[in-house]
């Protein structure tokens, strides 16, 4: 499992290179800032700072970029908790309960819980990586398009079914997201739904749409209110609630470990990553909870599940990067670029020939996860003063920053227009009880679902019986059906037994 001689060589490598340590704290802070600004993302931060690593040695260069990755993993949670704006697509589920906690004046607890879950999740992902990096390379290759398709359907159905609206509204909203994601040039070069506009050739950009659906619509809904938190006393930021949230999370360690395990496993699958991991972990935690009805209303476990999973998926993503040379998402794709800049190619040969460097990378990231607790605490304390700002001022400022951030992402007016359009759509959907979350998940999962469905169709020659020859697909399909049945039966039973509050 662990090559001890390579492990000690890794320790001496880290000990002899002070730059490998000097870059970590600035990297974490950059990640936190970029992750926390709506519209900017971890991948933007990593891309912006990639050239800065050109003159560094390989180890500090990668540790600097992974520090940005780690910081950004939690940075996205800060606006998700304080303003219902997931700073990154991997913090979508963090907003589900983090924001209701903020509205109840528990923003300190939510931020503390998210910080600890994030740090433990990162730690878990990298510790697991140390043990599984070699054997997992062979397992990942066994997942084909049919299995990946089931993963995509799983992600969407869970969110469509597990919401407070009706299942019909969840499905309609989810499918709306999927169809929006297919606008633009398809993989086969067909233009779909562009109505002749050149701006739509690349499709509807997911991050601006996500910001519009979640943030703009919610901000506009708040028009007329004074503050995010009505009670003046609750707006005061104290260290104690942050530490309480952190302490409670540590005591609820089984939830953190469950979220971390889900995140790492999903992170290992190429192309899925943190944006699916946080949703899958949230859905699993809600399903297994004794009080599922409290989710979405400010349950700390929801924040923990999401943050542990999105942070641990970083370690999972590094498995495929190191073992196969395949990036699992945008962040690891930039890391792959940094590998190329230093004439390094990931893959089984890299692991066998440079085991000491692989271990040094893993150990460096474990240290980053621990340092994140301290750097994150300072950052959280500064960022949470946002609840003291009057909403009438906060709304136009956040909308303006979102517009600028989305212009930065798309490089054209498509970003701001998408925010405005998606904001209007989200506002109407909220008004009539459609879950915007399902639309966002559909938007994120749609391209993957279409690609895997097409590949499955091509491989099978259009014969549905093909899946009978794929045992992993069959097992996943049976599990999906069983889980859906359990959820539907549970919903029906709770509807029949619950007191009719509305009456």
């Amino acid at each position, binding site marked *: 499992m662990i090559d001890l001689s390579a492990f000690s060589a890794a320790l001496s490598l880290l000990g002899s290179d002070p730059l490998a340590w000097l870059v970590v704290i600035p990297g974490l802070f950059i990640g936190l800032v970029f992750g926390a600004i709506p519209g900017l993302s971890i991948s933007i931060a990593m891309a912006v700072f990639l050239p800065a690593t050109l003159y560094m040695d390989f180890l500090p260069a990668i540790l600097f970029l992974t520090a940005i990755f780690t910081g950004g993993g939690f940075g996205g949670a800060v606006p998700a908790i304080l303003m219902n704006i997931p700073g990154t697509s991997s913090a979508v589920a963090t907003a589900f309960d983090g924001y209701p906690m903020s509205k109840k004046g528990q923003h300190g607890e939510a931020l503390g819980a998210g910080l600890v879950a994030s740090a433990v999740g990162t730690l878990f992902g990298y510790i697991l990586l140390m043990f599984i990096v070699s054997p997992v390379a062979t397992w990942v290759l066994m997942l084909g398009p049919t299995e990946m398709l089931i993963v995509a359907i799983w992600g969407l159905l869970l969110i469509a079914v597990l919401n*407070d609206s009706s299942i019909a509204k969840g499905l309609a909203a989810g499918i709306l997201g999927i*169809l929006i994601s297919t606008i633009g040039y398809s993989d086969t070069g067909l233009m779909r739904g562009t109505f002749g506009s050149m701006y739509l050739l690349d499709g509807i950009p997911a991050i601006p749409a996500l910001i519009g659906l979640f943030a703009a619509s919610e901000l506009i809904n708040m028009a007329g209110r004074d503050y995010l938190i009505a009670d003046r006393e609750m707006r005061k930021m104290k260290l104690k609630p942050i530490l309480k949230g952190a302490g409670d999370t540590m005591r609820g360690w089984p939830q953190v470990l469950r979220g971390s395990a889900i995140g790492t496993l999903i992170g290992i699958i190429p192309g899925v990553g943190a944006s699916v991991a946080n949703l899958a972990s949230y859905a699993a935690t809600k399903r297994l909870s004794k009080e599922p009805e409290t989710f979405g209303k400010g349950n700390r476990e929801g924040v923990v599940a999401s943050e542990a999973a999105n942070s641990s998926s970083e370690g999972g993503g590094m498995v495929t990067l190191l073992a196969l040379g395949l990036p699992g998402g945008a962040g690891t794709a930039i890391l792959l670029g940094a590998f190329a800049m230093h004439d390094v190619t990931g893959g089984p040969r890299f692991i066998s020939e440079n085991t000491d460097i692989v271990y040094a990378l893993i150990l460096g990231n474990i240290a980053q996860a621990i340092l994140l607790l301290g750097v994150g605490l300072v950052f959280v304390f500064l960022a949470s003063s946002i609840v003291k700002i009057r909403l009438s001022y906060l709304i136009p400022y956040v*909308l*303006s920053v979102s517009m600028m951030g989305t*212009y930065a992402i798309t490089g054209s007016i498509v970003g701001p227009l998408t925010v405005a359009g998606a*904001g209007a759509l989200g506002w109407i959907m909220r008004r*009539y009880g*459609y879950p915007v979350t399902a639309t966002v998940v559909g938007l994120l999962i749609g391209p993957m*679902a279409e690609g895997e469905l097409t590949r499955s169709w091509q491989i099978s020659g*259009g014969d549905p019986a093909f899946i009978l020859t794929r045992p992993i697909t069959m097992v996943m399909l049976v599990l999906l059906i069983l889980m859906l049945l359990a959820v539907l039966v549970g919903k029906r039973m709770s509807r029949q037994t619950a007191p009719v509050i509305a009456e």
Partner: protein
Amino acid sequence: MTDATSTPPVAPETQGGPTQSDPAPRRNWGALVFALVLAAALAFYAWSVMGVARGLTDYLLILPAAVIGVAAALWAGIADLAPLKGLAQITRRPLREETKGIALLVLTGVYACLLPWIGFDVGTAVFIALALIIQGERSLWKLALAAVPGAALMTWIFTDLLMVRLPVLLF
């Protein structure tokens, strides 16, 4: 989910639920209209893709998804026609009480559309000022202080610190 938490505040005049003067049960006609528009949009998109498709793989996902989506939207719309009862009735804010939100939505759309011409610097300053006016701010010096330095700071951060090439009019 977040949707559940964003329930609008109870309008004071509706807190008592239906009264003697308003005996007719309220129906959610707006929800039906939205469901019909959504179903029509999904169907139209699938139809437009089918029209240009060169093979099955071009609509392999889109067609079945649209069929399920249309059915789900119609089902949701019909289900929403049931008269609103209890909490659903008293917490629902009539459209006329959403004027600030609707005005902000329109303002945001206009701001986004005009950005290529008025730039992020001037556009953002005007947007902030108008958004504050919509939300009840009337003090001229507060409007100016929030709009001009705020827009200038944000534009400077993006253009000079983050090196994003935003369209600007003055800077």
